[in-house]
């Protein structure tokens, strides 16, 4: 029954999201589009953090690599083909993750967290300092990619509504892709690595390779989000790769409860929601945000997805005192 409900709720959520453009409020459509992009980003990180047990604090690097790829691969005043820049930018971010993974997966625990962070900083400086990236002021994407195939244009990314549904479609595809992968023997190995990597090794799994594959995959999916971000905003800057972005997406994953794809999506919505509400409420919204984060860690282990269960337990008088 639970799984029936689950499907119903997922579809209801999807229907709700599909209705957003009907409001006609272009700002909110764009905000929702951005949140969906972040949701894809959060799901990609969840593959690492929630399912493989790899706490990457540098995931923004792959987001940024893809975003920059779009800007750099597109001609300055003409539209690039979507069918070329999308695979290319996603491929480049997966490749970047593969290379970085070769280094960082040699480390564990705290090291891994710090080393992923440091490599993301390296990527940040590649776009920030070298002639490649256009410096701290970033690069414009003057013309959005076109979806034309031999003269036929199935949809137009310049149209906000089309773009929104394109992103919503991408979200569904990435969700289905990840959900499917997690059911596969490959996915089961990743979850096994999270639970007990040592045992996986003693059972004959070369876990490094699996982790590397997961790292590159997550980088590529993060690249999908980065690609969409660049298309939505038409502007890329090194800040997209900054450690604050890495921290924010980690926050979304944790808010939603790790190892839970729908949770990651919810986390992205809660995060942008909090930013909006607090930001409109007070100039010192970051103080409120910080307090919420600290309180969430201290009093809400397990993330948002654990909240309903905790409330239920508390109401039944058997609340945990964790």
């Amino acid at each position, binding site marked *: 029954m*639970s799984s029936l409900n*689950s499907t119903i709720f997922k579809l209801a959520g999807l229907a709700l999201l599909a209705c957003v453009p009907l409001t006609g*409020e272009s700002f909110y459509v*764009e905000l929702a589009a951005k949140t969906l992009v972040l949701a894809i980003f959060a799901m990609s990180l969840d593959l690492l953090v929630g399912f493989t047990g790899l706490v990457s604090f540098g995931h923004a690097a792959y987001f940024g690599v893809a975003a920059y790829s779009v800007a750099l691969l597109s001609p300055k005043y003409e539209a690039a083909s979507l069918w070329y820049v999308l695979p290319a930018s996603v491929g480049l971010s997966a490749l970047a993750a593969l290379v970085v993974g070769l280094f960082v997966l040699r480390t564990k625990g705290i090291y891994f967290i710090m080393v992923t962070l440091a490599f993301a900083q390296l990527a940040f400086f590649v776009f920030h300092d070298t002639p490649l990236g256009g410096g701290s002021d*970033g690069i414009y994407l003057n013309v959005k990619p076109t979806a034309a195939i031999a003269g036929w244009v199935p949809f137009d990314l310049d149209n906000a509504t089309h773009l929104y549904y394109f992103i919503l479609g991408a979200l569904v595809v990435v969700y289905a892709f990840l959900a499917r992968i997690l059911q596969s023997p490959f996915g089961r190995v990743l979850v096994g690595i999270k639970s007990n990597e040592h045992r996986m090794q003693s059972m004959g799994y070369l876990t490094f390779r699996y982790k590397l594959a997961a790292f590159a995959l997550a980088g590529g999916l993060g690249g999908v989000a980065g690609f969409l971000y660049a298309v939505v905003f*038409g*502007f890329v800057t090194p800040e997209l790769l900054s450690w604050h972005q890495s921290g924010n997406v980690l926050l979304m994953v944790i808010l939603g409860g790790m190892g839970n794809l729908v949770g990651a999506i919810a986390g992205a919505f*809660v995060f942008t*929601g909090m930013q909006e*509400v607090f930001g409109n409420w007070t100039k010192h919204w970051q103080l409120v945000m910080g307090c919420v984060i600290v309180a969430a860690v201290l009093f809400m282990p397990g993330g948002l997805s654990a909240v309903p269960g905790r409330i239920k337990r508390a109401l039944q008088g058997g609340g945990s005192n964790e």
Partner: protein
Amino acid sequence: MGHNLNKAFKFGIGMALAAGLTSGAQAADDKIKVGFMLPYTGTYASLGNAITNGFKQYVAEQGGKLSGREIEYFTVDDESDPAKATENANKLVKRDKVDLLVGTVHSGVALAMAKVARENKTLLIVPNAGADEITGPLCAPNVFRSSFTNWQPAYAMGKVAAQKGYKKVVTLTWKYAAGLQSIDGFKEAFEQAGGKVVKDMTLPFPNVEFQPFLTEIASLKPDAVFVFFAGAGAAKFVKDYAAAGLNKTVPLLGSGFLTDGNLDAMGDSGKALQTTLHYADGLDNKKDQAFRLTYAKTYKMQPDVYAVQGYDAAQLYGAGLKAAGGDVSKQADVIKGMEAAKIDSPRGAFTLSKAHNPVQDIYLREVQGGQNKVIGIPTKALADPARGCKL
């Protein structure tokens, strides 16, 4: 478990919708809507506040109305974060539907704002960011600036350096647009007049470990050093420069931001430093005296160049509104009014170039007693060349 997820999911959507509702536009049709997109947190927070104060001071001086219309303010903290710039600009443009967008300090953010303004045909006044492109290749009929281009003060300093007889100069800046464009402006004037820039050095923004560069300068022994730094980094640079003893043998020249808003932080090290900017302390001008008095009374602090730029943004808009009779829907008339305006600024009167950038006097200033005292006007009515602008 699945059950919980979905509750979480619904919660997330609920939150997002709630966010939408609480922040929904609550327009009052009779007021003119002005949106400030400025830094109110982080490194540039004090600049954002000064600009806001200046703008509001002018409006207050007009009795809280421009051309008989009340002003309603909307503010967004841009955090000087280019990654959020487009979204933040859209908050004001698309959500709040402001009539005038004012912002910002950070050049990268300002470029993104200019893009949003061009796409949505919203009137934009940039009250600080000096990126040459905004009134250069990216200029637009609805984009104005009440401040300067990076090129302007640096170009003036290039002339000053040549006049002082320097032949060999080394430059140093953070490697970002504002710095590099300043260096270009300096070089243009200095080399036209026969000088030679022997080495350009850069370091990543906002890195402040200058020691290796000071050593390099000492070994090159130039006639002078031209730098672009601002804020905290500038204060640190000036202190390091003095501590290295270089100030005794190699004169330090800079664009005015080197010594603006941070003189207290640099202490004695800043003494007698010469910089060029479109504003200075001790201007012999009634408008300035009145402006400073009111500002000090209202906000309990001294105004700076940023406050002036905010004040002039309001004056500029006021001139446009007047031309359109207070009707913001006649944007073409507003723009015409702004283009034709002669702004009686505390910095001295200025007009706008075709590219919508001030044509203004650049002052040579010297740090004296904790102030940037004007000691000369090397270039009168200097206009930015606005290369690449097709207006």
